């Protein structure tokens, strides 16, 4: 058989492509459910990590139900959207949409009876997507914790964003100044309230982290304003209550 004839070459190429394509797609379909479980658990792990709860993947499900009290989705005006679960929102797709069509997920965690607002992030690193979660205290400005991850940043350089030394720097830093996101990851950050130190050799990834924090957290301003004003109303009502009680005491 002459293996160098044109017809044979085309025949060989066709057969080979069909066989390999079949093998690859069958494996991919077969393994997809298993991979999805891993990915969903990892998401919960990362959410928990942002509020300082470290669990392994097997424990993620249980810990999630203990620490995460609420999850919901907002529209661009900061109002709740009904019928969508925050965990099902694929941020990769959402960030490409126009702002008034986006779903903005929020998770509310509970650490020592304090509310933590966990905001998912997604942006671009050097080679591919980066993402993470940032947890805010109930003043809606101070960072309680964070966790970051990446698809394919350079190991030892940009990939270090998923290490603790990087995310630990975020604790107690501030995000907003006068309704603008001022926070940034800086080269040679000197430890000001609005900055953390970037990763040497990973400048583009570090800038990616800044961009995604600024881009994402800006979208939540309407919601935070809403909570703030309702908190104010609540505290005014509380004050009025105490005045009433005092009056009654005086009257009696």
């Amino acid at each position: 058989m002459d293996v160098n004839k044109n017809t044979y070459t085309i025949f060989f190429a066709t057969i080979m492509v069909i066989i390999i394509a079949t093998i690859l797609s069958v494996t991919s379909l077969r393994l997809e459910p298993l991979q999805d479980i891993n990915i969903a658990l990892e998401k919960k792990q990362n959410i928990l990590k942002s509020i300082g709860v470290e669990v392994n993947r097997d424990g993620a499900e249980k810990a999630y139900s203990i620490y995460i009290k609420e999850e919901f989705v907002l529209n661009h005006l900061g109002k709740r959207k009904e019928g969508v679960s925050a965990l099902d929102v694929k941020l990769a797709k959402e960030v490409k949409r126009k702002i008034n069509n986006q779903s903005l997920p929020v998770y509310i965690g509970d650490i020592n009876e304090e509310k933590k607002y966990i905001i998912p992030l997604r942006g671009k690193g050097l080679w591919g997507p980066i993402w993470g979660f940032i947890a805010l205290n109930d003043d809606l400005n101070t960072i309680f914790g964070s966790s970051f991850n990446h698809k394919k940043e350079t190991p030892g350089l940009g990939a270090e964003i998923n290490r603790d030394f990087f995310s630990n720097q975020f604790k107690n830093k501030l995000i907003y100044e006068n309704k603008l996101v001022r926070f940034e990851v800086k080269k040679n950050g000197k430890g000001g309230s609005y900055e953390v130190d970037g990763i040497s050799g990973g400048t583009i990834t570090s800038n990616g982290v800044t961009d995604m924090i600024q881009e994402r957290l800006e979208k939540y301003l309407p919601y935070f304003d809403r909570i703030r004003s309702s908190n104010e109303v609540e505290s005014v009502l509380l004050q009025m209550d105490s005045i009433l009680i005092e009056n009654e005491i005086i009257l009696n």
Partner: protein
Amino acid sequence: MSKEALFSKKNRRLISDPLNDNNPITVQVLGICSALAITVQLKPAIVMALSVLVVLSLANVIISLLRNLIPSRIRIIVQLIVISALVILVDEVLEAYVYDVSKELSVFVGLIITNCIIMGRLEAFGMANGPWKSFLDGLGNAFGYGWILIVVAFFRELLGSGTVYGYPIIEKLGIYNYGYENNGMMILPPMALITVGIIIWIQRIKNTKLIESK
């Protein structure tokens, strides 16, 4: 033709040669790009060495089994497809069963496909030899590639970040107290080349037959 023993002297040389006399990195100077990218830390270097071991030995066997059927005009494409299909299969399986390892691999998957050592071995050896010999040749070259990678990564991680396999050895030994500082340059790519260069230098001092005659 008398049947050759599985581990005849010739076959053993297939494994031992690439470790030193015919090392893919230091002698053939192949696969430098991946050696440069992933030797910042020991762990990814080990994962990379193992992945190349699996892919190279399997691909060499497959190409060797098909060697009489592959039309020579499209042989490079066929080799590439075999390599990339194997790499994707390995990655999918890892992602489903050992998710953490698969995350460790992340960017290297692409690097394995473009690793010139693999294509070089398929073209130079798999296309011309039987499956068993090709398997041994694949193993040998992967070991040859792997040990260089691991040695380079060991020194870059130790001197650049002060850790070994993530363990902060310099800090634990208290060497920082004497004013020692990590050399940040070690984690930048050029130092991989310089480290490989030093290995080549040492290797040629020990192994004089590698020195070209003038």
